[in-house]
Each structure stands twice: as C-alpha cells, then as structure tokens.
C-alpha cells in the first residue's frame, strides 16, 4: 500500500491533488458528478472585496494543447461568499478548503482576507498577486518584489490561517518575487498562474479575446511551470503548491519531483470534469510504477 498523504502548511491532505482556482467554481458542478471529498482540497473561485462581473466576452480562446482565458475575476464578492456560498459548500465538501483572494489595493487584499479568516471552513488563504486579466490590480502586485512583500505582510497581519502567495510567471525573475514573499512571512507559495498570451481572428483581423490578452493554461505550459517550481524550490524553504498544465497522475509526480509539496490541476477540469477524481485514482498505480512508497518523500526529488 502506497501512501499519498502530504502536509501543506501544517494541514494534512489525503493526497496532493487540488483543483485550481477559476477552473472549479465553488465545487458544486463537480460535486454533482462525483464525491469531491476524494480530492486533497480545492481552491475556490478568486474572491474580491466587491462583486465583479469580469471582462466582456469572448473570454475564452483555444490554442495548441491549451487555452486562453480572460474571465477577469468574475465573483459575487466576499460578503456573498461568506453568507451564501460557504454554507452551501459545507453540504458537499467537508475538508478545509482553499480560499483564493484577489484585490486592487493592498488594503483591499487585507480586508478581504480578514473577512475570510472568520470562516472555519477555510484552511488556507491563497493570495493571487498574479491575475493577468485585470487592470490596475492582480498581476501588478506580483511583478514587483516590494509590492508582493507588502501584500504578504498586510495579509499575514490579519489572519492566523496559512497564507500562500500565488505568483505570476510573467516576470523576469520569479525567484526574486518568491523570496520577497518568504521574507515577508508567507507560509507557502503557489505557482504558476497563467502565462499572458493572445490569439488573433484571421477573418476579423482582430484579437479573439475581447480583453485582447488572456492567460494561457493547459499542457502547453507544463514545462514552464516545472522550470519555475524547480528554481523557486532551490531558493526558498516554505512549501510550494505547483501548478501549470498538470493533467495526469504522472504530471503530479513530476511536479512534486520539481519541488511541489502539493499540486493544483486547472484547465484539465474544464475538458474532463472527472479529471480530479481520475488523477486521485491513478496516483497509487503511478507511485508503484516508479517505486514511490510515500508520496511526500519525492518532493524536490529531482534536485
């Protein structure tokens, strides 16, 4: 019997498989298909202080082995999440859940996190300083080490829950941002968010996405994600949640060998709604195939 259990910032997980924010809603659509308690946990849709409609459509474009999205943080706002969504979620998910938070000012990040801190259902706060699809927020906090550190400090000051800073790959040196977050007190790091890209419609001679640019996800970005997780693992001591194109149990192990303590799966949930369950089910056989007894033992194993 192999052991898939891992620990993320002191909270035990039955397995490291975590659907990524923005690809799993609040879990309800998937809970209608399978018991999502088989997952390690999941990171729910990015939450902001105020409700947001997001960007105009089209918000989705396809590309080779992946997709672009420019949803733009559509969400009902933190008050509705606390009052309506989390009580509903408790009816189908009984594990600590990961709350993904975004903002447009340092104060807004802190305020939203302080409000979410009150929910006993939330295990971790995943602070998104890397959304490429909003203007004047999101990624602008994740491309400057000083700003990233400031958001980290302000969020840490208002919560006792573990704080994971979600980093952008759209930077020259992700290690520098990672270290700034660690030095500012982050309990862990999530990487990578999507890679900024675009498609152009040949007939209209215009960008496909109404927002012009979007975030690239899917198997196409796995090598970039592995490289960045590998680099950051060498530079920090706090745990890394690795993500970017992970679609199979083999990819999960590969991401852990690069240095991830837990692994998020994103775009694949949209193409195969059973992907989370399938990857969890496939993990033991893949571990046996590669001679892994305890999954946690292979974290950073490629270094």
């Amino acid at each position, binding site marked *: 019997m192999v052991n898939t259990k891992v620990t993320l910032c002191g909270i035990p997980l039955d397995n490291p498989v975590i659907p990524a924010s923005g690809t799993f809603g609040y879990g309800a*659509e998937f809970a209608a298909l399978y018991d999502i308690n088989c997952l390690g946990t999941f990171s729910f849709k990015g939450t902001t202080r105020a409700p947001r409609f997001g960007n105009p459509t089209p918000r989705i474009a396809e590309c080779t082995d992946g997709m672009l999205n420019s*949803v733009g943080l559509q969400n009902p706002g933190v008050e509705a999440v606390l009052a309506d969504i989390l009580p509903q979620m408790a009816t189908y998910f009984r594990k600590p859940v990961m709350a993904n938070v975004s903002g447009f000012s340092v104060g807004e990040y802190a305020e939203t996190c302080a409000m979410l801190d009150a929910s006993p259902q939330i295990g971790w706060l995943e602070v998104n300083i890397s959304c490429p699809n909003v203007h004047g927020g999101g990624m602008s906090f994740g491309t400057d080490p000083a700003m990233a550190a400031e958001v980290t400090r302000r969020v840490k000051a208002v919560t006792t829950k573990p704080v994971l800073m979600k980093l952008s790959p759209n930077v020259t040196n992700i290690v520098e941002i990672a270290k700034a977050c660690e030095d500012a007190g982050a309990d862990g790091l999530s990487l990578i968010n999507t890679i900024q890209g675009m498609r152009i419609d040949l007939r209209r001679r215009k960008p496909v996405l109404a927002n012009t640019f979007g975030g690239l996800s899917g198997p196409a970005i796995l090598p970039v994600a592995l490289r960045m997780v590998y680099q950051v693992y060498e530079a920090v001591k706090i745990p890394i949640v690795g993500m970017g194109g992970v679609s199979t149990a083999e990819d999960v192990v590969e991401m852990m060998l690069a240095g991830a303590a837990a692994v998020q799966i994103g775009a694949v949930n949209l193409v195969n709604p059973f992907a989370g369950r399938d990857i969890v089910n496939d993990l033991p056989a893949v571990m046996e195939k590669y001679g892994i007894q305890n999954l946690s033992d292979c974290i950073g194993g490629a270094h």
Partner: protein
Amino acid sequence: MKEVTLQIVSQTRVARDVYRMILAGDTTAVTAAGQFINIKLDGLYLRRPISVCDWEPEELTIIYKVVGKGTAQMAALPDGTELSVLTGLGNGYDLGKSGSRPLLIGGGVGVPPLYLAAKLLQNEGKTVTAVLGFNTAEDVFYADEFRALGVRTLVTTADGSVGTRGFVTDALADVGDYSYVFTCGPEPMLKAVYGAVNTDGQFSFEERMGCGFGACMGCTCKTKYGNKRICTDGPVLYKEEIVW
C-alpha cells in the same frame, strides 16, 4: 450532465458546409429541446459545443456548420467513430409556456434546436409556425423536415433565392397571430427578433465556452436578474430578462 461515449451512426451533408450527424448511445441526460452537447475531438484541447437537433432513446441528431478546424475535423470522421461527449448541457426551452400557437424563429445553424422543439410542440397538439432564415438557396436545410412534422414553415433568404427575400423579421407579417416565440440564431438576428415580435418568448444564445458546464465563467452575460452563464443558466434566456 453525463459524460458518455457516443458512436457516429451516419453523417449527411444537408446544405453548403452544413452536416447532420446521428449519434448512438446513452442519451438519457438530454431532457429538453434547446440543450447542447460538448464533444471532445482528438488533438483539440477544448470540447465543441453543438445544439441537439433531435432526440430518440439511444439516439441524438446534431447539425453543425463547418466554420473552423474542429468542425472540419468532425465532418471528416467516419461512421462508427466513438466520441467522448458531455450530454444534457444547458437549460433548454421551457415549452410549457408556448400557448396554443407558438412561433419558432431560427437563423442558420440556430435552426437545429428548434426542430426538436417543433416536434414536441406538434405532439402536444399545438398549432406551430416556423420561420427559418438563411443567406441563400444553397444554405437552406430542414425546411422540408419541419413541414413533414406538420409545422407551417416559412423560409426567408437574404438574397430572395428561396422564400421571402430578407431576414426572418421580414416574414413576420405573413405569420398571423402567435402566442409565444422560441428563437435561436446569431445575436444580430435575436436582437432584431426581440424588437419585432409582440409576445413573450425564449431566446437561445451562443457564446465561446471553456467547459460548457458552469465551472469556468467563460460565457457569462448580464441579465436583468443578474449574471448568467450561457452554458448552464442558458443558453435559453427569457425575453424579459435580456440585456442587449
């Protein structure tokens, strides 16, 4: 929603670049006219959402137009090919609101979901009229199939090569009284219909989708009753809630 494997029974060209695909397998998740399915194709990352044209136990008919790589690939698939399909997606039309004389208005590849609606309404003994709009004669499909159901069917073409010259709204004067409208087609057509009809109705919208089942928020639109996802809260919206 269900994930099922469906097998291609046959494919037939029904108009220029337009194909009918009959699929066999578990179709139990389809519960209403106006729903769609989402088809996985080899080598393409996202599934292809296509509306359901007709439904029988163990059998589905879809009609699609070749507009890009995915639909071109679909048209080339041989009979017997097995496809991974998410079925029973979207809300579909609530036919219970039709009244006694429903009017169906379809434009181009917006026509197919109205076929199942027409069939079900005919079976309920309603007096059904359909207005089907196309660009030109070689684009026209399914007018005879609607007529075979016993539906009074008016065709319009933009160039006048078949039926009334102009758009679907140009045929409304010939329709007579109607109790309710069910419509599907390109957004400019839906908007024109919205302005031209004098009853309540249900409008089926199209949008680029990531997942097709409500997870990605890729297809959200604004309505008078808040944000709605075209894939799960739609594709059918009530006339009264539409915000253009």
